[in-house]
C-alpha cells in the first residue's frame, strides 16, 4: 500500500489559487503580479505532477491512493493515480505551464487578465482532478469544474456576438451532457452500491468483497448497459466525437488563442481519458459476460464514430477560411483517430491511441499558439487576410510548419510515429478499413494544410506590414513544443516500450488498480 499527499495536492492547490486571485485584485492592479502568480502556480503543479509520475512509474510501480479527510474508499472520496492518470496529469500540467508563459505576451494590452487567470487555473484544476480521481462521482464534480471554467473562457470576449453565441451553445449542451452523466451515476450507485472506481471494477468482474462496501442490488448487467450508454454520450461530447462535436468548431475559435490551444489540445483529452477509464478499468472485456458484451458493443460503436469523425472533420477542414476553425476541425479528426485506436481493445491499440493523444496535444497547442501570433499581426483570422504574414515572422512560421508536419504525420516529428503505430494497430487487428480511414483523412487534411501554408508564407501580403519583431516570451513555449515533437519522434521506440507499454498492460489487467484501493480500505477496517 502506498499513499502520498502529493497525489491529493494538485487540484485543491490550483482551486485555492484560483479563488484567492480575485481577492488580490482589491489591492493589486499590476498585470505582472498576476502573470507571475499564474506562472508560479502552474509551475508548482507541473513539478508535483512530474513527481507523481516518477513515483507511480519508478518508485511504487503501481497506483498510489490518497484518502481525502482520512475516509477510506468507498466511504470517502479518494484520488487514485495509476500510470494512465500520471501520464495524462503530466501532459496537462506541462502544456498548461507553457500556455501560462504564452499568456503573458497574449494578455499584454488587454483587460480582464485577472479573470482570465482565475478561470485558467480553475480549468487546470478541473482537468487534473478528472484524471486523478478514483471516484466516479468526483469525476462528475471535476468535469463540472472544468466545464464552468471552459464556458467562461469561451465567452471571455463578451462584446463579441460570436463568442457569446458559441459559449451559450457550448454551455447549454455541456450542462445537458454532465446531467446525463449524473443519471448514469444514479444507475451505477443504485446497482453497485458504490461510486468508487476500484470497487465498481471489482464488482463488474464478479468480485464480492470490498471493505465498507455492500453487495450489488438488482440486475447490474442491465444497469451497466444503461450507464455505459449515458456516460459514453457525455464523454463523446467532451471529446468532441461525431455526432457530439458540433459545439467545438464554434467554441474553440471564439476563445482567446491560448485557451483555444488548451481546449483543443487538452480539454478534449479528458473525454478520451474518461472513455478509456470506463471501457478498460471500471468495465472491461474481463468483466462478467453480459457486461463484457456491452463493453464490446460500445467499443465497436466508438470505432465507427471515430472513423466518421476523422473523415467528416478532415473533409470540412478543406473549406474553412477561418484559420482557428480549420485547426478546430483538425482536432475532431485527430480525436477520431485516437478513439479508433483506443476502441480496438488491444495493447498496441491503446499504446497508439495514448501516443497520438500526447502528440496531438503538443502539436495542436503549438499550431494554435503559432497561429495566434500570426493573427495578432494580421488582426484577422481569415486565411486570406493572413496572406504573406509568415514572411515577417520566420521563427513563428517555422514552428507553425513543424506543428503542421507533425499533425499531418511526417517524419521525424512525433505525429508520424504515432500515426504509424495506429496504422500498425489497425492492420494487426485485421481492420484494413480503419487503416484506409487514417490515410484518407490525412490526405484530406493535407489539402487544408497546404492551403494554410501557401497562404501564410507563399502568397504576397495583401497590405504592407511594418517590420515585426518576434519576441522571446512567446518563442520560448513555441520552440519548446517544437523540440518536444522532435524528441518524442526520434525516441519513439524507447518511449513506446518504457512509457506506453506499462500503461497498456495496467489497463488490460486492472487488478493492481483494484488492489491498491482495496488495501487502503482493508488496513483501516482492521
Amino acid at each position: 500500500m502506498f499513499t502520498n499527499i502529493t497525489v491529493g495536492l494538485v487540484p485543491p492547490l490550483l482551486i485555492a489559487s484560483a479563488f484567492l486571485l480575485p481577492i488580490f485584485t482589491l489591492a493589486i492592479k499590476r498585470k505582472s503580479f498576476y502573470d507571475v502568480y499564474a506562472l508560479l502556480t502552474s509551475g508548482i503543479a507541473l513539478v508535483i505532477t512530474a513527481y507523481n509520475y516518477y513515483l507511480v512509474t519508478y518508485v511504487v510501480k503501481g497506483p498510489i491512493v490518497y484518502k481525502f479527510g482520512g475516509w477510506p474508499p468507498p466511504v470517502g472520496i479518494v484520488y487514485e493515480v495509476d500510470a494512465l492518470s500520471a501520464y495524462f496529469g503530466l501532459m496537462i500540467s506541462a502544456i498548461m505551464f507553457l500556455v501560462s508563459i504564452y499568456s503573458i505576451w497574449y494578455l499584454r494590452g488587454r483587460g480582464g487578465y485577472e479573470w482570465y487567470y482565475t478561470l485558467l487555473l480553475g480549468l487546470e484544476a478541473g482537468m487534473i482532478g478528472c484524471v486523478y480521481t478514483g471516484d466516479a462521482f468526483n469525476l462528475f464534480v471535476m468535469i463540472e469544474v472544468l466545464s464552468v471554467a471552459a464556458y467562461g473562457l469561451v465567452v471571455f470576449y463578451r462584446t463579441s456576438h460570436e463568442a457569446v453565441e458559441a459559449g451559450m451553445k457550448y454551455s447549454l449542451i455541456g450542462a445537458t451532457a454532465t446531467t446525463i452523466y449524473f443519471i448514469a451515476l444514479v444507475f451505477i450507485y443504485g446497482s453497485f452500491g458504490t461510486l468508487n472506481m476500484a470497487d465498481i471494477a471489482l464488482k463488474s468482474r464478479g468480485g464480492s468483497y470490498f471493505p465498507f462496501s455492500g453487495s450489488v442490488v438488482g440486475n447490474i448487467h442491465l444497469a451497466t448497459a444503461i450507464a455505459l450508454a449515458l456516460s459514453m454520450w457525455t464523454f463523446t461530447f467532451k471529446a468532441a466525437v461525431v455526432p457530439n462535436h458540433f459545439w467545438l468548431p464554434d467554441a474553440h475559435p471564439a476563445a482567446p488563442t491560448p485557451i483555444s490551444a488548451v481546449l483543443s489540445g487538452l480539454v478534449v483529452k479528458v473525454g478520451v481519458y474518461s472513455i478509456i477509464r470506463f471501457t478498460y478499468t471500471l468495465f472491461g472485456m474481463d468483466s462478467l459476460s453480459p457486461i463484457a458484451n456491452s463493453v464490446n458493443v460500445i467499443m465497436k460503436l466508438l470505432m465507427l464514430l471515430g472513423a466518421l469523425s476523422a473523415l467528416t472533420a478532415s473533409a470540412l477542414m478543406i473549406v474553412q477560411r477561418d484559420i482557428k476553425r480549420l485547426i478546430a476541425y483538425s482536432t475532431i479528426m485527430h480525436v477520431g483517430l485516437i478513439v479508433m485506436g483506443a476502441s480496438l481493445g488491444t495493447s498496441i491499440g491503446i499504446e497508439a491511441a495514448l501516443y497520438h493523444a500526447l502528440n496531438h496535444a503538443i502539436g495542436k497547442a503549438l499550431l494554435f499558439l503559432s497561429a495566434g501570433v500570426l493573427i495578432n499581426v494580421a488582426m484577422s483570422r481569415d486565411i486570406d487576410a493572413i496572406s504573406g504574414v509568415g514572411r515577417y515572422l520566420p521563427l513563428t512560421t517555422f514552428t507553425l510548419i513543424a506543428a503542421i508536419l507533425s499533425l499531418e504525420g511526417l517524419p521525424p516529428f512525433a505525429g508520424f510515429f504515432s500515426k504509424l503505430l495506429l496504422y500498425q494497430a489497425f492492420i494487426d487487428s485485421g481492420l484494413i478499413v480503419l487503416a484506409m480511414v487514417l490515410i484518407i483523412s490525412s490526405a484530406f487534411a493535407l489539402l487544408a494544410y497546404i492551403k494554410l501554408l501557401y497562404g501564410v508564407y507563399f502568397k504576397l501580403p495583401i497590405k504592407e506590414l511594418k517590420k515585426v519583431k518576434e519576441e522571446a516570451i512567446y518563442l520560448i513555449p513555441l520552440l519548446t513544443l517544437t523540440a518536444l515533437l522532435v524528441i518524442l519522434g526520434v525516441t519513439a521506440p524507447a518511449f513506446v516500450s518504457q512509457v506506453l507499454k506499462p500503461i497498456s498492460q495496467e489497463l488490460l489487467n486492472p487488478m493492481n488498480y483494484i488492489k491498491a484501493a482495496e488495501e487502503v480500505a482493508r488496513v483501516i477496517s482492521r
Partner: protein
Amino acid sequence: MDVITASILASISMLITALIIYLIYLSVRSSGGSETGLEPYLCGESANDFKDGISVGGDNLFWGSTLATLRRLYEVLRDEVHTGVLNDWLTYMGIWFSIATIALFIATTASGG
C-alpha cells in the same frame, strides 16, 4: 530491423537529402522572385490582352476544381448536417444516444443479462 527504427533511419536520410537539395538550390537560385503561378490562366492567350479584365488566379483554379469535385459531399456535410441550429445538433446527438442504448440493451439481454 523493426518498423520504428527503420522509420527513424529513413527520416534521417530524408533530412540529409533535403538539406543537400536545399544547399544546391541556394547556390543556383536567382536573386529575383518569380510570379509564376500567380499570373492568371488564360487558356494560352497573352496576359497583356486581358490585363484590365477580371480573371481567376492560377492557384485558385486548383481549389475551384477540388471543391467542384467534392460539391455533393459539402452539400450534405455543410448545408444539411452542420447547419449551426441547436435543434439539428440535438437530433443527431439523440440518434447516437438512441442507437447506443438499443444496441447495449440487445447485447445485454442476448447474453442473459
